[in-house]
């Protein structure tokens, strides 16, 4: 989780209520490999996405991004596609948990951006810049518990440490 550095990327723009069936259709849930899943990301709603997405690209969406299934395959597919951060007005809660737990950065913010705009995200300052439109937005960082979870390597590292504690 690169919370300490700036991310720059091109925008893929989505609306409200982007559900997990749109992110990764269920017929491809026969693997959990992020790269394989990425090949089918948004296949039914934005078929050019999988072909044209580049490492570092950013998703900007409206309310309730990631609603629907609990499938962790959804954030995995986005990570596999190289998405560096998802910025949305709000997130569905299981998608939010999954992303934090596997290390896909999310930002809850309302940002004016169109498909193809270039954004710069500064996690440490809580600032999003739309370089194309020359506008700036601020965002609230995650609660401390979740930041600690992310910075210490996500839930896998956390679990390992807890298991060690229990054994000593």
């Amino acid at each position, binding site marked *: 989780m690169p919370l300490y550095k700036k991310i720059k990327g091109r925008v893929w723009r989505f609306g409200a209520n982007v559900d997990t069936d749109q992110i990764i259709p269920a017929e491809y849930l026969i693997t959990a490999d992020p790269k394989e899943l990425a090949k089918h990301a948004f296949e039914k709603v934005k078929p050019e996405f999988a072909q044209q997405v580049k490492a570092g690209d950013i998703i900007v969406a409206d309310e309730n991004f990631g609603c629907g299934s609990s499938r962790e395959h959804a954030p995995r597919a986005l990570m596999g596609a190289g998405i560096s951060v998802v910025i949305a007005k709000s997130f569905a*809660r299981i998608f939010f948990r999954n992303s934090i737990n596997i290390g896909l950065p999310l930002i809850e913010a309302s940002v004016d951006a169109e498909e193809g705009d270039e954004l710069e995200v500064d996690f440490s300052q809580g600032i999003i810049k739309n370089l194309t439109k020359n506008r700036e937005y601020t965002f609230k960082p995650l609660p401390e518990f979740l930041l600690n979870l992310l910075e210490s390597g996500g839930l896998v590292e956390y679990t390992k440490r807890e298991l060690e504690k229990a054994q000593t």
Partner: protein
Amino acid sequence: MGATISEKILAKKAGKREVSPGEIVEAEVDYVMVNDITGLPAFEVFKRFGERAKPIKEKTVLIPDHYVPNKDIPSAEQAKAMREFARKYNLPHYFEVGRGGVCHQVMIEQGFVAPGRLIVGADSHTCSYGALGAFATGVGSTEAASVMALGKLWFRVPESLRFVVEGKLGKYVMGKDIILHIIGDIGVDGALYKAMEFYGSAITSLSLADRISIANMAIEAGGKAGIIPPDEKVFEYLKGRVRGAYEPVYADDDASYEETFTYDAKEIPPTVAKPFLPSNTSPASELGDITIDQAYLGSCTNGRIEDLRVAAKILRGRKVHPNVRMIVVPATQEVYQQAIREGLVETFVEAGAFVSGPTCGACLGGYMGVLGKGERAISSTNRNFIGRMGHKESEVYLANPAVVAASAVTGRITDPRELE
């Protein structure tokens, strides 16, 4: 100040006197469930915990249901991974094909679910268990693996919303209609991150099956949990079924709800959610002439024996319309057996419906009933997103089992009262 059901259960499980909305707590989890799709990534994550990590046997429940019986070779490998994980750690709670079924109904039938418990599942419809007064919520695979190892997990204490439905429900109006009506009112993010608690005489009068349909679809309003205070109907159901002891939890009289929504039961008709969101609702009688290609009866939302009885009653002595395929999928082996005993399976088959053993397959567009381009289904399931049951240009209309059966007969979406 008083506490809601969610706050009380989370406080108890976190070992605290009280908790408040927004607070993040670590709480002891009673059971963690994964299915064949979400299991595989969980098992891979589990390996990363190291050789010495062992899943907690009593708490770990493995239920293959989405793509079993195996739909193809990759899904066979996925199901095999679950079987091997169960064998490697000698896990007792594994439900093989032919001895289980749709995970949420299995969890309830097998007595894992009880009032006051805290249960997580790597499936979004885990919220179904709130119908028995548990706090249950969907999680991801990584965190499911973590709970298998540690028996606890972090939770953000949700704000609670109160839904009160008073009065007597009309004929053919079911739990499904209540929850569709509510989602139509508050929207698919109307309860985002929040716990929904349901009260009122219309809720009390419902069977447990109908209550499960309501709690099941809390997630379709973005809810973290959907909880109904447990009563005699729940305690009766649990007799001889529940594993271990349990303690019902109720909200305090002065509990604080962020908002209260009140509905009059007689204003709720048989309701249909049109594509492509569960909030896009309309009374079945007002839809006009919408022809269908498929009628699907089943799923964790409406695949219980009570649902099958309602549909069979309408189909008895009638035939499925020549232009319609009707697919009936009992949620579990127990439901299937009961349906055979009661002659319901015979009724369906005689009407010209296809009946199969339990699987989630068609509900999520996996197999056993996938829709082609331009095809339309009436379905007793819970989601009607773009391409949910197949081709991106197919359509799913959500409804209760009576509407599904009536529509199967007429070939177009039909309010069952029309057949009388």
